[in-house]
């Protein structure tokens, strides 16, 4: 057993980058001012706030005035959906989303439904892709918003956001994307892509937990869901989390600067896992699209050992490797099959049995080799799959 932990659950959260820690430190220590204050301490904090807003805006080629800091990706999603409906008012409102969204979107849609809003959930294909033609056919005169995630948290599939956003734009409807998984990993350019609103969370890009942001294109009407002192130009009242915002800004800047090289590196590691597992384990299958997926995201299923995926997680954990079964956000739901996998057409058994391996900035070739060495050992220890041959070919296909 390796003494060093190998963390392969970067879609759940990521370790802080030391550069981010360094950027945050002054705001946990000497620079403690409230950015709304007029004195020097306040002005120091305001400078940080403005700098971070620019850093986040640059990640999407947005205008800094279009970035609003929040406390999480979930809050950003809530604000986007509820804020648009609240701003528009009216009695007949319709929202289009997809069946594979994060609960932050789906549960907000359910909340809107209880208020009388009609919600259409677009189906997913077996790769986790939303068909643009399905979107095109779902509009009504009362449609106020389309919300489709940029990349899925469970299976890693990257949506055809350009086309989906273009269709919404052509219908005159704002397009929101939950980019919590995609931001900082694949390029998103709101000046060339007709995205109206975009959510992100710092802790998915080696930033701190407890801070997120919402991009709202200038001119799109949106109402606050938190009421108070009018911070963030009235959209998100609450004294700003300065250390978190400084961390998010730094994390966004690092992600932008290193995105290409990092993506190319992670794709190689990702494909090494996919191909080696395929060679070693005949009952393994890849979940999600083979190529249209996030650079560091692997989601695997093992035919006939759905229940054992939890055991596999536990035994890999004992061996020092952290992975997950599906989304961390649904881990507490116990027996419930993944709504994402069910929407992709998996039966309830398979929908309970996925294994998610997600790579990040601090994973190395050695981490992947250690995982690929330990995985078959742990699978052999699971009696029910011992009937499957495990090849010694560890060289990929």
């Amino acid at each position, binding site marked *: 057993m390796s003494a060093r932990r190998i963390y392969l659950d970067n879609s759940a959260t990521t370790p802080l980058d030391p550069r981010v820690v360094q950027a945050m430190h002054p705001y946990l220590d000497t620079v403690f001012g409230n950015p709304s204050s007029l004195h020097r301490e306040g002005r120091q904090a305001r400078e940080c706030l403005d700098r971070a807003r620019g850093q986040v805006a640059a990640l999407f080629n947005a205008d800094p005035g279009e970035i609003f800091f929040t406390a999480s990706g979930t809050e950003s999603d809530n604000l986007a959906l509820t804020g648009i409906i609240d701003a528009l008012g009216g009695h007949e409102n319709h929202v289009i989303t997809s069946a594979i969204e994060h609960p932050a979107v789906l549960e907000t849609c359910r909340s809107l439904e209880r208020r009388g809003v009609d919600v259409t959930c677009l189906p997913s294909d077996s790769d986790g892709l939303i068909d643009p033609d399905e979107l095109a056919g779902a509009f009504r005169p009362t449609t106020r918003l389309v919300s489709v995630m940029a990349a899925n948290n469970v299976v890693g599939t990257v949506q055809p956001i350009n086309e989906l956003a273009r269709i919404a734009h052509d219908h005159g409807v704002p397009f929101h994307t939950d980019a919590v998984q995609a931001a900082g990993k694949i390029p998103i350019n709101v000046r060339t892509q007709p995205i109206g609103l975009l959510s992100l969370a710092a802790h998915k890009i080696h930033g701190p937990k407890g801070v997120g942001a919402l991009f709202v294109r200038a001119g799109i009407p949106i109402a606050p869901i938190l009421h108070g002192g009018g911070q963030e130009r009235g959209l998100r009242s609450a004294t700003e989390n300065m250390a978190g915002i400084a961390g998010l800004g730094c994390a966004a800047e690092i992600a932008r600067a290193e995105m290409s090289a990092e993506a190319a*590196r992670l794709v190689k590691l990702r494909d090494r896992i996919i191909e080696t597992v395929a060679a070693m384990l005949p009952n393994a299958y890849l979940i999600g699209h083979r190529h249209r997926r996030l650079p560091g995201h692997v989601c695997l299923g093992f035919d*006939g050992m759905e*229940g054992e995926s939890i*055991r596999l997680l536990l035994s890999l954990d004992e061996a020092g490797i952290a992975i997950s079964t599906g989304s961390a956000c649904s881990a507490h739901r116990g*027996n419930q099959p993944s709504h994402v996998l069910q929407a992709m057409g998996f039966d309830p058994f398979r929908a309970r049995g996925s294994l998610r391996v997600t790579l990040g900035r601090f994973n190395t070739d050695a981490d992947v080799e250690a995982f690929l060495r330990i995985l078959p050992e742990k699978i052999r220890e*699971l009696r029910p799959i011992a*009937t499957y041959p495990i090849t010694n070919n560890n060289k990929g296909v």
Partner: protein
Amino acid sequence: MTLTVKDLPGLDCGACGFRTCEALAEQLPGDQALLKRCIYYSDKEKMATPTLVAKPPAPAPTACGSCAVASAPKGANPWQDSLGRDVDFYLDHFPTEPGPREIIIPHNPMLTREMNIQPGDVLIGRPLGMSCGCPITHCGVAMQVDPRTGVIVWCVTGPLRPRLEGFKDLGYYIAEGYEGLVHKKRCDLKIGMRYFFQPTMCMLQWRHSGLINYLNRTGDALQIRVEGLWIG
């Protein structure tokens, strides 16, 4: 069709595994299939997903019952579970039945009637909390059903049959008792006493504990019923 760097999005995003679009374009003349790696080349195009599994999948193994590998794992100490805790005996299933026999009750016992559960029905569910909390969804076949109390006697099997034949989903259930045979024990077993035991077919190989309230010698084994179950 010969593609050049001008045909690529020019984002240099790295998501294809090459650091730049130019680097990808250089490889395209020799392998046009590499274009499938570009997630921005065509959002409209549905690129076929190659099958990861080269061979048809082997028959799905059953978790227990008809499992081909029916013996307990051979650790350094056969009287310890996978977490290194001592066990007093191993509980095997009746050889004439498709898997370990359990007496269960849905968390809402009315489900037994509402779902019209009948002997022979294929069921799934997870044993939640007391007793005996387990993270694994179980599958099985109903053997006896008491619609008045909701109590079901089922034999736990692997997932293959539910997948092939369909099933009724109990959601969560309580495991009230186990019945089976004891071939391997390291102490005398008595009615009314609690013991640590290892269900031979337990996927996790975690020890359980329970109170023996039925015990009868049958051939070379002891037939027992254990109730008041806990994991650990």
